[in-house]
């Protein structure tokens, strides 16, 4: 039952400059500490990379508070993060291995960085046979298995599937391409297609347990195209490379452009499907106030992951696949869509709920992604000044 005239609308309303500064102050201090690593930075290029990243994160956060818009500024960081991740990761791999490709020797030595998507395939074999079916190291390497699993558990508890909009270093690619056109060419996509990612999750989890190999990484992952892959040496690896490039082109570029939706994240990503279940344990959710909603369906049209439909509007909230990007919150002209904290009263205090969510999400994004962005900025400064990345 709604208690205010238009209670959620203030969440999207601009804040005064003074209020904005006061609300942003803790974030300014926290990100300063985390991005600097608690060290005094003397080297000019490192200092410049820190200042650029620090300013970038905090200007976006201040704009989120000041304008009341969430997704508009989140997307800027998220897309930049995805591109910068590729810059940082690929140049790191070239530095460490001399190539973007991962050789059999590197794999056998357990020096392949662990990515969160692999989590979907390692859990069953780990539970059944105490074996991690991945060519990485538990603790000793760049992006080790243990560190990524701990980060994933923390993010799941805090943000649930919000990971997919605030932390995933791949999601920015299709998020970015989904924003290139003002209007979708392909509309009215049946919501049932979003079940496909759950089917992929079941299939890759079971097949990986059967063959004791992360089959999604070996055969499907579109983001191999912008991270690392096996060198093309025979027919098999040529087919693999062909699949990666085709899926990246199709699901992360062409379909997002045509549909204005995050098609890779919605239709294919098994991690996104698994992460949907963590929305049940995360304290944050997106709710719809039925009293304010005028069924204009702007939120359904704009939702990038098919997480809103007429049925969910009637139910007063987004489906459990919600990535908490805030696009519906931004687009609702009546402020009916709002961030909510489970267990607290509905349809009131929307501004406080949103601020608490933003602090969790932006801080996680800054800590987890800020280091990568900072590293990529440093590499780009090196490229500009010395010609070497």
């Amino acid at each position, binding site marked *: 039952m709604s208690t205010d005239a238009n209670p959620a609308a203030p969440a999207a309303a601009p804040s005064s400059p003074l209020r904005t500064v006061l609300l942003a102050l803790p974030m300014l201090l926290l990100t300063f500490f985390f991005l600097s690593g608690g060290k005094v930075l003397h080297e000019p290029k490192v200092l410049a990379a820190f200042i650029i990243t620090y300013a970038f994160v905090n200007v976006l956060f201040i704009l989120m508070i000041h304008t009341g818009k969430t997704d508009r500024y989140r997307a800027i960081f998220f897309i930049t993060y995805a591109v910068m991740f590729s810059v940082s990761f690929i140049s790191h791999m070239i530095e460490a291995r001399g190539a973007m490709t991962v050789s059999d020797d590197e794999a056998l030595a357990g020096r392949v960085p662990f990515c969160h998507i692999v989590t979907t395939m390692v859990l*069953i074999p780990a539970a*059944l046979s105490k074996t991690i079916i991945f060519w990485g190291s538990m603790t000793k390497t760049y992006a080790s298995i243990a560190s990524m699993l701990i980060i994933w558990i923390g993010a799941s508890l805090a943000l649930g599937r919000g990971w997919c909009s605030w932390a995933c270093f791949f999601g920015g690619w299709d998020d970015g391409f989904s924003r290139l056109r003002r209007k979708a060419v392909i509309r009215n996509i049946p919501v049932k*297609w979003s079940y496909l990612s759950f*089917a*992929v999750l*079941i*299939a890759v989890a079971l097949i990986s*347990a059967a063959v004791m190999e992360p089959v999604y990484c070996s055969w499907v992952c579109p983001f191999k195209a912008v991270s690392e892959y096996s060198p093309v040496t025979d027919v*098999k690896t040529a087919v693999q490379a062909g699949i990666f490039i085709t899926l990246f082109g199709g699901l992360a570029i062409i379909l997002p452009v045509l549909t204005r939706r995050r098609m890779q994240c919605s239709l294919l990503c098994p991690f996104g499907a698994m992460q949907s279940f963590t929305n049940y344990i995360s304290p944050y959710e997106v709710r719809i106030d039925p009293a304010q909603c005028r069924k204009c369906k702007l939120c359904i049209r704009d939702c990038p992951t098919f997480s809103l439909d007429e049925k969910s509007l009637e139910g007063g909230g987004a489906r459990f696949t919600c990535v908490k990007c805030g696009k519906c919150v931004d687009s609702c002209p009546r402020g009916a869509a709002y961030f909510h904290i489970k267990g607290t009263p509905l349809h009131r205090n929307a501004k406080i709920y949103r601020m608490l969510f933003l602090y969790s999400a932006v801080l996680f994004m800054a800590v987890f992604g800020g280091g990568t962005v900072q590293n990529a900025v440093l590499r780009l400064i090196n490229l500009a000044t010395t010609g070497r990345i």
Partner: protein
Amino acid sequence: MTFHVQGFLLGLSSGGACLSMCAPVLFPYLLGEGNGVGRNAAIAGQFLFGRLAGYLCFAVIAWAINATLAGLSAYRDLIMGCTYLPLAVLMILYGLGRIKTQCAAERTASRFAGLKRDRRLLFVVVLGLLTGLNFCPPFLMAIAGAADTGSLAGSLLFFAAFFAGTSIYFIPAPFIGLLRGGAVMSTVGKMAAGVTGLYYAYAGIIHLVEGVYFQ
């Protein structure tokens, strides 16, 4: 220790691996059917019956080709290619079977749905048979064990006992029917069957090519 005790213990010790090999086929099918625990138990029974038939086929083959593991292993890729491809076709057809979405494949899909309704029992048994004809590590050990028996009866008995040991691991499978979700779970199960079918199609082609050209 007698052959059937050996076979049973081998099945018991390696049944987890057998379950993991069969799960990508059985679980999407059980999800796709969307039945309760009782009906799922019947389906799992039919699947296991097919698997037993597959095992007994191998028992006969193992005995017929003079019961040498090396003799069978020489045809490993060919046999796996020949079993994976029909399995892939069945899984993909099942995936397309009754998806109620408005798509270009609907007319074609509904044709296969009729076919499946008529032969549902046979379908599950064939799925079990094709997964039974598999060179997974426990199965290779079973072939070696059956070879030691030296007779057709001993080989059959060994494989039957091996089957009984591995089947214990399938007892939880029908409880997938406790998952709530109705039509959504059913659609997800069918889609998962289709995706699994695509994987088996790829694996079948690779095995067949390697079996024919690189033997």
